[in-house]
């Protein structure tokens, strides 16, 4: 990915923050599921 298109290399933007939050939610939802679910159909 070039310097121009890599979002991380740009000044901090709302798009970046939204994506960070979404990625964080994706990681975080894995925890309760790991604790609690023994199978997902």
């Amino acid at each position, binding site marked *: 990915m070039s310097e121009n298109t890599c979002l*991380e290399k740009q000044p*901090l933007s709302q798009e970046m923050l939204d994506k960070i939050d979404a*990625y964080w939610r994706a*990681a975080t939802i*894995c925890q309760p599921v790991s604790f609690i679910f023994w199978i997902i*159909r």
Partner: protein
Amino acid sequence: MKEPLTMDHIKKKIVGHWGTVPGQNFVYVHCNRVIKRYDLDMILLSGPGHGGNFMIANTYLEGSYSEIYPNISQDEEGMKKMFKQFSFPCGVPSHCAPETPGSINEGGELGYSIAHAFGAVFDNPDLIATVIVGDGEAETGPLATSWQSNKFLNPITDGAVLPVLNLNGYKISNPTIFSRISHEEIESYFVGCGWEPIFVEGDDPMTMHKLMAEAMDKAVEKIKAIQENARKNNDPERPKWPMIVLRTPKGWTGPKVVDGQQIEGSFRAHQVPITMEKPEEHLALLKQWLESYHPEELFDEKGTLIPELAELAPKGDARMGANPHANGGLLMKDLRLPDFREYGIEVDPGKTKAQDMIELGGYIRDIFVLNKESKNFRIFGPDESMSNRLYKVFEAENRDWNADLLDSDDCLARNGRIMDGMLSEHMCEGWLEGYLLTGRHGFFASYEAFIRVVDSMAAQHAKWLKVCNQLTWRRPIASLNFILTSNVWQQDHNGFTHQDPGFLDHIANKKADVVRMYLPPDTNCLLSCFDHCVKSKNYVNAIVASKHPSYQWLNMEQAVKHCTQGVGIWEWASNDEGQEPDIVMACCGDTPTLETMAAVTILRDELPELKIRVVNVVDLFKLESNHKHPHGLSDSEYNAIFTKDKPVIFAFHGYPTLIHELTYRRDNQNVSVHGYQEEGTITTPFDMRVQNEIDRFNLVKDAIMHLPQLDNRGSYLIQKMNDKLVEHKQYIAEYGQDLEEVRDWEWHTQDNK
């Protein structure tokens, strides 16, 4: 979430530690951003211990987990397996265990994360080790002192450690101290420890993302500026390194209230916040909790993270789960080693005296010289390298020190490789473990008694290695080597507090695949043992060595043979060749060897018809069965040395119970072990042995009493030994030193007096 939740979906036993994971996920994703933004080489250490599945989840999302474990694929099928295996029988542990890609700090036992991180960045100038420090962990002794590690970091030749102290406010059921003191107190504390704290505090996710992104940018840019200035201007002076104080609610984004009790932001978020004891009500809460993350926006129909988010993760080895520094064996290069035989000394057995540790120091000095370019060898010790007689290493290297320097200092330098400037066994051990885990070499030289301070750390490392041995993707790393000197038997001016040989008992109980113990009786044997240990991989090696002037027994050729075999009959000291021995005089350790040899001279002088076999043990695990330890002798090999039934008078360096434990299934149970009996004080070296009945006079008495065939012929010799013991006590009380016949004793036979 494709169908209504029912209790059929729920694990029968719900386990996990939720409280810490949102904060750790938060740090991981922000690390990902700065790795890409600044093209960083970064690893992450998780100090809080529990919540290891945060690292599994993040390495799974970035793809590194599935590369190592293809069954945990990045789709619905793999996801199911990942969820089921967590904290589940035949699954994976709940901490950042060796099974977790990217981890070098399991965190089950708290307190070692920052020390491991510093060990990782020593001699790794381009590496940043980000460390999530739990606020519970921060209350442990090792973690509390590890903030001082910044006084040993060289901004030119070392990398950087970026601590992120995650104040989520609670431990298991108590608040944490850092969370209940003021912002100003926290700031003053860390400024006082030489850090520049950056605060990120709040609970609104989007506000916090912005604050954290800015804090990470500030911290990384500060680190880069420090390093650029230091490297451009050859300025190794200690800077104020940045750190982040991240205050977030415990169990952030989890259920707010369950059964009328606050969960998020309280100690009740520590483990699983919803227990499913009220199925209908709790299933609804669970559904609400999971839906709050909007998984339908994050994963596609196949259960794969959507591309727009997947692209946020770094690529290749830049992913923290794939960083080769966290699988140090991938980067490890063998040391260049001099030929240890060239450092051996000439020996007239039982007459020559030398200081084993001084001679070993010459060999280690030249390891430094040969590996100067590689910069992959350091030695560690709590201000004891000089005391432990490693004088010669200072001919090649200095002590590392990055606090103020005075003209009167000795051998301190900004780029030293002798890490003995901090009087903390915890830091020495933690730094060394971090250094080894990232693919380098070293050893820890300690007073024998005070290695007990890190018993538990050594045990944790042994557990780590035991698991690594079962993981083909974890490449072997250099062994964790301990040299235990300033040992129990000579503490002329230190006394009882410095007398504890129990580390051997501790190590003896660890997994046989991992642990080794060596007790070389003299210089040439020490050189041979050390050379073996420093070349070995994936072991915990404990060497017990003498530092005081002591008797020498074997020339180098004999020493190599003896140490290679680990145990053997000293035929030149025995007189039973070709016959059944009447008695076996066995010894293990430098002082027990001396007293056994002295006892043998008395027995051979007084009872020349007695057939005596002298056996010396270097490799302690030789005594254990080969069914229990890979070094163990078979029963037939053991019987060939110790006989099936002849009395064995065994003088041992440590506690006698260890010898009984190692030999309890052998045929020959006619063994009388002499060892440390927890008797001691400030006294003469020989009196220490008398107090613990490991001295030559008590050994002779015991030998006679195990030989009923002597009848009354032994009685006068027993009387003579008793008289000697009284004479000894009177002499040391009068003169403060040992009897002349003890001080000037030399090995002899009747033919060679």
